[in-house]
């Protein structure tokens, strides 16, 4: 029971990360295309300036919950995905500096360099996160001791690349919806147009991913056939994408953003629903049954204590979250003259 609760907690933290940091990664991925000049790019960064760091904390908290609840998953996956994870860390570093250092010196060369760093690293991160989800669905090549070495030749396979494309397109859509919500004028119009186009790309990638999942990960449908109510989750994703499409067309930016957030969360929830109780399944033919919520978990005492901490902590986090986004509600004010 407690192991299942922790599965839900971990899924919630990762979905929280994907929804919150997702829109600022999406802003980054579109940055150079959406912002036509230095001023517009500054405006785009201003829309995420006060919140991006808090959004990224969700990744750290998700990592923290993984250490405490599923230490074997944390140990096996992080060392297994070693080089890919290091690349993620370096990209996160460049991206953070791009946001925070860009405005420190007002010179076109300096700003442009950071614009490129911010945009390219955000794009690659969105891609890598999608690739990671793809590989988790597909399974990893465990050896008999429950370890694996995920070199890039292993990690970059057609299925996970579809996952990467889904990551980029969906987060870019999510980012474009955020930009439309927080800006006005030309930039807003362009953001809406981008969102409209990205919607097709995202839905196409999603359809391809779902179709490919039936081939690559046949066990994936087991949970859905056993518990048909779980089909509500993909149904919500489908409904959210319809709402998103209509809201973009109608210029209802708030609804569009909430719908894209639901899409991102719903896609991850569907993945989680399909995986349960597995955390990291084995690739077909591996001599190890994979990591699930039992063999990867901390002992029950540690799980219970950490759950108390979590419930208390997440209450505080929700209070901060609501209030912070309230303080920054409305269009981003810019101080340009």
């Amino acid at each position, binding site marked *: 029971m407690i192991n299942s609760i922790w599965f839900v907690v971990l899924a919630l933290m990762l979905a929280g990360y994907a929804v919150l940091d997702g829109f600022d990664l999406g802003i980054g991925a579109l940055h150079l295309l959406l912002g036509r000049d230095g001023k517009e790019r*500054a405006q785009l*960064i*201003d829309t995420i*300036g*006060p919140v991006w*760091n*808090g959004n*990224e*904390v969700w*990744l750290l*908290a998700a*990592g*923290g*919950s993984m*250490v*405490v*609840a599923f*230490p*074997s998953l*944390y*140990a096996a996956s*992080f*060392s297994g995905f*070693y*080089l890919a*994870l*290091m690349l993620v*860390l*370096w990209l996160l*570093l460049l991206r*953070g*500096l791009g*946001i*925070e*250092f*860009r*405005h*420190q*010196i*007002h010179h076109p060369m300096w700003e442009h360099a950071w614009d490129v760093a911010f945009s390219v690293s955000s794009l690659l991160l969105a891609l890598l996160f999608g690739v990671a989800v793809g590989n988790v669905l597909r399974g990893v090549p465990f050896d008999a001791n429950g*370890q694996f070495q995920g070199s890039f030749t292993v990690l970059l396979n057609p299925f996970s690349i579809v996952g990467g494309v889904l990551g980029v397109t969906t987060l870019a859509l999510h980012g474009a919806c955020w930009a439309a919500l927080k800006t006005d004028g030309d930039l807003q119009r362009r953001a809406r147009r981008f969102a409209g186009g990205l919607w097709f790309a995202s839905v196409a990638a999603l359809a391809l991913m779902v179709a490919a999942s039936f081939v690559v990960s046949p066990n994936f449908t087991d949970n859905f056939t056993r518990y048909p109510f779980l089909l509500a989750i993909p149904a919500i994703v489908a409904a959210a994408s319809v709402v998103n499409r209509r809201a973009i067309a109608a210029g209802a930016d708030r609804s569009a953003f909430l719908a894209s957030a639901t899409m991102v969360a719903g896609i991850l929830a569907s993945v989680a629903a399909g995986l349960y109780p597995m955390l990291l399944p084995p690739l077909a033919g591996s001599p190890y049954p994979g990591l699930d919520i039992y063999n990867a978990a*901390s*002992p029950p005492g*540690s799980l219970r*204590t*950490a759950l108390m*901490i*979590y419930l208390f*902590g997440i209450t*505080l*986090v929700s209070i*901060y*979250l609501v209030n*912070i986004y309230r*303080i*920054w509600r409305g269009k981003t004010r*810019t*101080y*340009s*003259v």
Partner: protein
Amino acid sequence: MSDAVIAARWQFAFTIMFHYLFPVLTMGLGVLIAVMKTIELRTGERAYGAAARFWARIFAITFATGVVTGIPMEFQFGTNWARFSHYAGPVVGQTLFMEGVFAFFAESSFLGVFLFGEQRVRPMLHWLSSVMVAAGAVLSGFFIVATNAWMQHPVGYEIVNGRAELTSLWALVSNPYARWQYPHVIMGSLITASMVIAGIGAFYLLARRHEESGRIFLRVGVVSGAICSVLAMFPTGAFHGENITRFQPAKMAAMEGLFKTQEGAPLAIIGMPDREKQDLMDPIVVPGLLSYLAYGNFHARVTGLSDIPPDEQPPIEIVYYAYHIMVGLGTIFIAVLAISAFLLWRGTLFDTRGMLWILMLAMPFPYIANHAGWVVAEVGRQPWVVYGLQRTMHADSTNVTPAMTYFTLFGFMGLYLLVGLLYLLLFLRIVAAGPGGARDEAPLGTIGSGAAVAGGRS
């Protein structure tokens, strides 16, 4: 020790030492900025508000650099120390997780308000956000020290099926080892922030620029630095030393270069430990003082390295020198800051240019002292990663090869060199621009500040 472990240790040592250059400033600076905001709010002196805004700019770049270099730390436990994570995760995961949900969220949420919201929220809320940012940073430090204290002195656990299981969260967060280690770390951070503030103040007076702000910086930095440097030695340092004697005799023996177990053990002021001869070369010692510091009794018996099995001894030279550098610098800080505080009280500090030069040039040294202290803590714990439970050589990731680790270590070195240079560039630019002026009218962070400054100039 295998090549893979050595590579992983180099990587961890390099990345953590580079990372800590930033939080060691922000923890203390956050507190002192909150103090300046409080003084402004209570006395209405706008100069303190300007000082707080100036240091918030430094805080912003330091915090950002600390965040981006800190993220790799949490993930390295998994990438390079998988067997440690597997073994100790159920316990140390608790404090790392608590750091995330209690400290990071508070810090990052209020930081946005603090840096960007001065014109958007009420003054009280802005003051509160400065306090919450400081509290978040100091709390974050607590969870890290609690994690480290468990690795130094494991408590509140039992070994089930060959791994650690938490039995008491209270024991974990009230670890007697952390009781003095934590305030000692915070004092180290406050000294660093105080001496940087005082040093920049001294620079402004010496350069005859922004002199009004310079005097405020000196006042805040010298007063807080003088208090904290004394507190770092006594009680925090002294009692932490007693804890090390009690819990980690091997570390204490290495710190003091004590080879032979003896009663009335002497304290070595200087001297070079010679492992072959099992003695200190050219020592200057104070007889009996080590016994007194360790047990409060000049005749107490202190364990020397000769009574510790060779495979449980830490690398003596590194621990010995790091400890002596820390204590030596700490003593010098007390002297410099106490004299400065005296001159400040007499009203002559601002004209005593020799003292101002010393304060300005002293800026790098608190960083060295803090880092040396952590070297004592971490290298002194060797050969254990969890003291008495898991050896470092059994803690690495077996599926990561030395070549992979060296590859990423060199990557980190290149990237951090760039980050360090850019940080220094921005730091110097902020100092050169000085407090006040057009920049102060704009918010502290990204929102259009570049454009606003450009507007102010054109």
